[in-house]
C-alpha cells in the first residue's frame, strides 16, 4: 500500500497543506515542535482511523478552528486507487472510503494497513500484559475482521459481566444465572480468541526470529510464548471449568478475572524472559523487530505491505541499526520517517527518497 497524495486542512498546526509522494522513503526533518510528527500522525489516522497520540479527534483540530479535514490518495500493489477522506466538525466524524460513508470503524479496519514505530511504545515490552495483548490483537485484526468482531463481542460480554459482579459484590443484586450465561459466552468467544492468537504467534514468529537475529547482528535469539493458566489441550473446556470453579472468587472481587483478557505473551531473549532480564537496549531492539516483523506478517496474509511510519527515528534506533532497518524495509515498503537529526540527509539515496523540511507548519521539499 502506498500513499501518493495527502491533504490536510486545519489539522494540528497546518492550515492548508498538500503533499505528493512518489518515492518509497519519505523523510521529514526540522527542529522539534515544528509539525513533523503531525504529518506522520495524519498518515496513520488515514489508515487506522485512530491517532497514536490521542484518543480524541478534538485534539487534532488546529488551534482556533472548529474542525479538520484530511484526505489521502492511496494505491495498492495491484494498482487500484483508494481514496480516504476524514472530516471532523468538532462534533461528528465523517469518514469516506471510496466515496462511501463508513459508519463503523470495523468496516474500514485493515483496508489501509499502517504499522508505526513511535517513541514511548516501550510499554509493549516492559509494561503490563494488556500492552502485549493489545499489540497482538491489533496485528491480528488488521488482517482478520472476524477476529475484531469476536474480540468486540468478548469485550462487551466482559463489561456486562463486570457490572453484574460489582453489583453482586456490593450486595445490590443476585444474578447468579446471568453470570452463568455470560460465562458460557466467555468460554466460546474466549477460546476463539485463544485459537486465533496462538495461530498468529505461530505464523508471526519465523519473521520475528529472522529479523531480530539480523538487526542484532546474530547476537540474540528471540522467541514469543503464549502464556495462559488454562489447559491448552482443550482451552474452551478448561476455561469453562475454571470459570465455574472461580465464580465465588470473581463475585468476591467484583470483577472478572478468568479468560483470555488475562493471558499474556512472554517475550524471550536467548531463552530468558525479556521483561525480567532484558537491558534497555535489548528492549528497544526487540520492539523494533516486533514492528518490522509486523510488516512481513501483514504481507504474508494480505499480499500487501503496510505503510510504515517511523516517528523520531533515532529515539528508538541508533545510526548503525538504522542502516539495518533500512535494509529490511527496502522491499517496496513505503516508509514515512521523521527526525530532528539533519545527518539523515547524507544517508538518504535521492533516487528512492524524498526529503521535506518542516518549519512552523510549513513543509517544503528539499529533494
Amino acid at each position, binding site marked *: 500500500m502506498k500513499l501518493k497524495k495527502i491533504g490536510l486542512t486545519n489539522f494540528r498546526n497546518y492550515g492548508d497543506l498538500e503533499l505528493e509522494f512518489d518515492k518509497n522513503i519519505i523523510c521529514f526533518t526540522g527542529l522539534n515542535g515544528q509539525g513533523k510528527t503531525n504529518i506522520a500522525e495524519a498518515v496513520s489516522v488515514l489508515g487506522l482511523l485512530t491517532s497514536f497520540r490521542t484518543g480524541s479527534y478534538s485534539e487534532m483540530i488546529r488551534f482556533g478552528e472548529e474542525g479538520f479535514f484530511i484526505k489521502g490518495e492511496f494505491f495498492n500493489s495491484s494498482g487500484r486507487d483508494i481514496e480516504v477522506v476524514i472530516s471532523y466538525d468538532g462534533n461528528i466524524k465523517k469518514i469516506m472510503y471510496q466515496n462511501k460513508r463508513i459508519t463503523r470503524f*470495523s468496516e474500514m479496519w485493515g483496508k489501509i494497513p499502517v504499522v508505526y514505530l513511535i517513541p514511548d511504545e516501550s510499554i509493549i515490552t516492559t509494561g503490563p500484559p494488556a500492552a502485549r495483548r493489545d499489540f497482538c490483537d491489533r496485528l491480528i485484526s488488521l488482517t482478520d475482521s472476524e477476529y475484531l468482531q469476536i474480540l468486540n463481542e468478548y469485550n*462487551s460480554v466482559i463489561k456486562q459481566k463486570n457490572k453484574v459482579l460489582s453489583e453482586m459484590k456490593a450486595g445490590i443484586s443476585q444474578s447468579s444465572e446471568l453470570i452463568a*450465561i455470560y460465562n458460557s459466552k466467555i468460554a466460546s468467544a474466549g477460546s476463539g480468541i485463544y485459537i486465533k492468537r496462538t495461530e498468529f504467534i505461530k505464523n508471526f514468529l519465523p519473521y520475528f526470529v529472522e529479523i531480530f537475529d539480523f538487526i542484532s547482528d546474530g547476537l540474540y535469539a528471540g522467541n514469543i510464548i503464549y502464556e495462559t493458566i488454562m489447559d491448552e489441550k482443550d482451552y474452551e473446556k478448561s476455561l469453562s471449568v475454571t470459570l465455574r470453579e472461580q465464580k465465588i472468587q470473581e463475585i468476591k472481587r467484583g470483577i472478572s478475572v478468568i479468560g483470555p483478557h488475562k493471558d499474556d505473551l512472554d517475550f524471550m531473549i536467548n531463552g530468558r524472559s525479556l521483561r525480567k532480564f532484558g537491558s534497555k537496549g535489548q528492549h528497544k531492539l526487540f520492539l523494533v523487530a516486533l514492528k518490522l516483523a509486523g510488516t512481513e506478517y501483514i504481507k504474508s496474509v494480505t499480499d500487501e505491505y503496510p505503510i510504515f511510519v517511523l516517528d523520531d527515528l533515532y529515539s528508538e534506533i541508533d545510526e548503525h541499526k538504522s542502516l539495518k532497518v533500512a535494509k529490511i524495509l527496502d522491499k517496496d515498503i513505503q516508509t514515512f520517517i521523521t527526525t530532528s537529526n539533519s545527518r539523515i540527509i547524507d544517508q538518504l539515496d535521492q533516487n528512492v527518497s524524498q526529503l521535506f523540511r518542516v518549519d512552523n507548519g510549513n513543509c517544503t521539499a528539499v529533494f
Partner: protein
Amino acid sequence: MGKQSEILQNLIDSFAKLPGIGKKSARRISYYLINSEMKVSEKLADAVIEAKKKLGLCMECHNLTEHKICDICGDDKRDGSSILVVENFSDLYMFEKLNIHKGLYHVIGGLISPLDGIVPSSLNLASLFLRVREKKVRELIIGLNHSVEGDTTALYISEKLKDSGINITRLATGIPIGGEIEFTDEVTLKQAFMERRIF
C-alpha cells in the same frame, strides 16, 4: 443578540429530550409549530394526550392496546400454541406486517443489559414464563436481535424454560437477500455456511 424567550427554550428542550431528536431538529420543530396555525399545535397536543390516556399495555402480551387485551391476543383465529418473543412494539409491528406468524406475541420491553441497568426482573419475563406454563404453548420463537444483549436474553429465556418441554427456536442469521458474499462480514458468512439448508 438578545436573550431567547424562556417559553421558546422550554419548548425546544422538551423536543430535544425525545429519542432521535437533536437540538437542531428540536429548534426546527419548535419554529414550525410557532409559525403554523393554532390548530396544528392543538391537534398534536390532543393526539399526545389521547394516546397517553387511552393506550395501555395488553395484559397478556404487553403490546399496545386501547383495551385490556390487544386485538391479536383477542383474535381466536390465531394459534395460541405459538408465541413470538419480541423486544418492543416496533419489532412486533415489523413481524405483523409480514403476515407470516399466525400465533401470538410477547413483548418483553428491552434486552438484558446490566450496564444500562436492565436486569431480567426489569423485563416482562415472569409473565412470559407464566404464560408458557399455564397456556398450552408448544413453540416459542425468539425474535430478538443478534447482539450480545439479544443473545444473553435469548439464552436466559431458554435456560429458564429448558425443562418445560416446549420447542424453542430462534431467528436464523445469514446473508441478506440481494446481499453479496464479497461484502458480507466474516462472522455472518460463517454462520450462514453453518446454517445452510438442503436446497
